[in-house]
Structures are given as C-alpha cells and as structure tokens.
C-alpha cells in the first residue's frame, strides 16, 4: 500500500440517470449521487427496491452511461466495462451452454490464458465457493444458489481489483449465506479489494461493511452514509453479539423504513 491510501479508488460525482420509459415519460432513476470509496474499502448499498441500487452499480461497472456526472476509477474516467472491475449481476447470468468449469474459466479464456492454465484457475475458485465436484455440470442441473456461487467464482477468476456485487447472496438459503458471508470477509481481509455490495439484508450490510450507503427513492438518491465502526477482523457471531451492531442495524432499519412508508403513500 502506498502513502496515498486515502486517495479515492472509485469516485462517483454528481451522477444523474434518467431512463426513457415505454410511455415516453422520463424516469429519474438517480439524482445527484456522489460518494468516494478508498482503496480496499467495503461499502454496502441498501435501500427500498427500485431506488436505483442496480443502476448505480452498472454505471460504476461501465455497463450503463450516466446521464450527467462522472465516475472515475484511479483518476481515470469510466467509459465502459473492464475486467479490472469485476461484476456479479443480480440475475447472475452465467452461461447455460457452458459447463460450470468453463463458466468460471471464462475471464481467463478471454484474456488468452491456455486451456490448462484457465482450468487450473477455475478449479481453484470453484473450490473457494465449495462447488469443486460440480465442475462438469451444466448450470441447468444446479440450484439457484449454486448458480449464484458460480457467478461469484466467475468474477473471482478474473482477479479484479474492484468487486461490484448486486445482491450476490440473494438466492441463497440462510445457512449457505452465512458461510459465504464469512468467506467473503476472509477473502476481503486477505486481499483488501474495493467492494461495492448491494444487498437487501441490513444485517449483512453491517456485518461486512466499512460504510453503508442508505438510498432513498423517487428519485433515487443517497439518503445517508453510515460509518460502521466495528472492529476488524470480524467474526460473524462475535460481531452480531456486540451492542453497537444492534444499534447500527436499528438505525439503518429506521432510515429505510421511513423511506418505504413514505413511498407507499
């Protein structure tokens, strides 16, 4: 780590996003969104559904263009996707025509790694997500949660410096979810990647993050950014037992709840 550890790794500045809807009306999905992530920071994004979490993540990924404003990574403006910014899409979108192992090997294959090399990498990350024995299966033969883990392995195999994850644990049962949360914690503590993590689970956001961005809807915007001053390294059970954990959780919960109630009126 260099001396400029506090220089932003990702910087989102005054981003607006408008969608043209089918009825020709304009929909303001994001309004004046600004924040910065330092290198190695873990940031979660929570908020009621439809508040633009996915949209924000896709703009940082370079998959969508901002209507106004800029996203910069390492002081360079984002104009398109890059394997440096790994993405796990909300609907995981692994390729059904590829066997599990060839799905995980996709990134290395695209950058021209030899068959042997990319299979070795793929095996390693399949083991990481606990699906080593399913290497030769087709995705249709796996459960939704397993597919989601394949998508995570597929991203890890590209070894990106930024993880952009859109509800990556959404389709998992509670137990697998907790196992993978622990695993992500360990992985993050070891490699210190910069992570933007969209989730519906406030518990998960508090457990994993350095900061939690709470979003409000209509138009989608940042309501507040909550610093999570819990000690690291974190063990899930110990962290959940801390009184601050409950306080933070309740605080964020109240913030979203007010938002959701307002939206329903």
């Amino acid at each position, binding site marked *: 780590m260099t001396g400029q550890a506090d220089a932003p790794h990702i910087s989102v500045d005054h981003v607006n996003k408008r969608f043209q809807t089918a009825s020709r009306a304009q929909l303001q999905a994001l309004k004046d969104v600004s924040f910065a992530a330092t290198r190695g920071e873990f940031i979660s994004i929570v908020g009621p559904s439809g508040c633009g979490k996915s949209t924000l993540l*896709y703009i940082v*990924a370079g*998959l969508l263009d901002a209507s106004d404003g800029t996203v910069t990574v390492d002081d360079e403006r984002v104009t*398109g*996707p*890059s*394997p440096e*910014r*790994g*993405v796990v*899409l909300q*609907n995981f*979108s*692994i*390729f*059904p*025509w*590829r066997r599990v192992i060839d799905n995980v090997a*996709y*990134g290395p*294959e*695209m*950058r021209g790694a030899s068959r042997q090399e990319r299979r070795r990498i793929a095996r390693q990350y399949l083991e990481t997500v606990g699906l080593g024995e399913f290497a030769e299966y*087709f*995705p*249709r033969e796996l459960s939704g949660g397993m597919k989601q883990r394949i*998508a995570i392995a*597929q*991203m890890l195999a*590209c070894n990106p410096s930024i993880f952009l994850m859109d509800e990556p644990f959404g389709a998992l049962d509670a137990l697998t979810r907790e196992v993978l949360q622990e695993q992500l914690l360990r992985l993050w503590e070891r490699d210190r990647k910069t992570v933007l993590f969209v989730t519906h689970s406030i518990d998960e956001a508090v457990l994993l993050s350095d900061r939690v961005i709470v979003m409000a809807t209509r138009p989608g915007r940042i309501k507040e950014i909550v610093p999570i001053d819990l000690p690291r390294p974190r063990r899930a059970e110990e962290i959940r037992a801390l009184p601050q954990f409950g306080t933070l959780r309740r605080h964020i919960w109240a913030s979203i709840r007010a938002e959701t109630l307002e939206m329903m009126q």
Partner: protein
Amino acid sequence: MKPDSAAQAAPLPRPSSRPTLPAGLVRWLHAVARYYPVALILLLWELCSRIGLFDPLFVPALSDVLQTWYVEMFVTHDLLVHIAYSFGRASIGFAMGATVGIMVGILMGRVRAIESFVDPLISAIFPTPKLAIFPLMMVFLGIGDASKIALIFLGCFFPIVIATYAGVKNVDKYFIWNARTKGANSRQVMWTVVFPAAMPFVFAGLRTAMLTAFLLIVASELIAANEGLGYLIIFAQRTFNPTLMFAGVLTVSTMGFIADRLLQALGRRLFRWQEQAER
C-alpha cells in the same frame, strides 16, 4: 452419465437361464416401436391394395413398389444415380443458404443499418413464389444444376436468416453484459455469447430449410431436368408406370425422414445444456 445398456449387455458371456436378445435386434425393435405410426400407415396401404380397395393403375401395392425400388436401386442402379443428382444439388443449395443465411441473420441482429436495409427485403422477397420465377432463373442460369441450386439456395436462405435474426435479437442482454465485464471484446462476445445463445433458433431454421430443400429439389426437377428424383417421377408418370413413380416418391420421403431424424438427433446432442420446458 447413463451407460448404454444395450451396448453393455452384449459382451457379457454369462451362462444365464434367461436368454438375452442380441443388442442389434433390441435397438431395431426400439426403432420400430418409436416409428410404429409410420409402419401402421404403410401396413394399411398394403392391406387396402390386397383387398382391392386401390386400383393398381393409380395406387400400386406397397410390396410391388418396394420390389421395383429394389431392382432400380440394387440391380440397375438407375435410382442411385438419380438420388446422387438430387442429393448433390439439394446439399449444395442448402449449405450455401445456411452459410449466407446465418451470416446475414447475425449481422441483422447486431448492426442496425443492415437490419433496416435487409428486413423489408425479406418481407418482399420471402413470400414471392420461387417456383413461379424458376423459369426466369433458368433463362439466366440454364436448365442445368445452377438454376436448381439457386432455387434451393433461395428456399433455404429465408427460413434460416429469419430464425437466426430472431435468435440473435433474443439473446439476453445480461449474458452480453456479463461477458463484457469479464473482458470479452465485441468479437469474443459474438463467438462466445451471441452465437451459442442463438444456436437453438438457428437449428430450428435449419430444419425448416432442409425440409423445404427436399420439396424444392423435386419440384424443380419436375419442371425441367434430365436426371434426378423429380425427373424420375415425372418420367414414370408420362410412361404410365405408377409403380416406378411411387418408388421415386417413397425415396424422397424416406430421404427426408432420415435427414430430419439425423438433424434432430444432432440437435439433442448439441443442446443438452438447454432447460426443458415443463409439460
């Protein structure tokens, strides 16, 4: 993976009290069981002829047709020559139609300028009766192979281009997004995402096109040819030889049947990854 039980049963020389059928026979019986509707119709045909329901001047008995077929095929080899001509023309036209159809279909699905240029052309030219303009094609390309291949090409091109275009348009945007975030450039996206995702559609188009090719090759040879199955059929008609005519017709149907079955078997192998719809 399930082992092929029929193939595994054969090399086991165990002194069993229960006699096992030879593997070849078992497979043959399976095929018969699968295609019994076809066998039923053929049987009905023979039966109607035998009890005198069909006038042999118009519809000869299946057994007579098969006998003629056997002679023409394995004794004089006349039929073999006609098959070779028809099959050759149809395959070349089909291969060309498939190649160009797939290429244009992909381009239409990916490049807006090509889409807006070709789409109205398809609407205009596809419904044009190709057989009606076939004489015109003969004026330009002669009465030999070229005009027939061109006709087949046109007949195959349209179903394939439409199917491919639909397939490419239908590719889930998120597959492409996923590929791009893994570092795929546009050429790689094409080969590793768009093409495999569209393949099941392309295959459906190939099937329609292949069956169309069988219809068109015979039709074109009926109109003008000196060889080929269509020529054989029209020659038999003109010389009042219904048995030979039916031998020709049956040859075409059987070839179409086998080709279609093979294509479907290939499709099942290629698309094992596909989710099957519940029913």
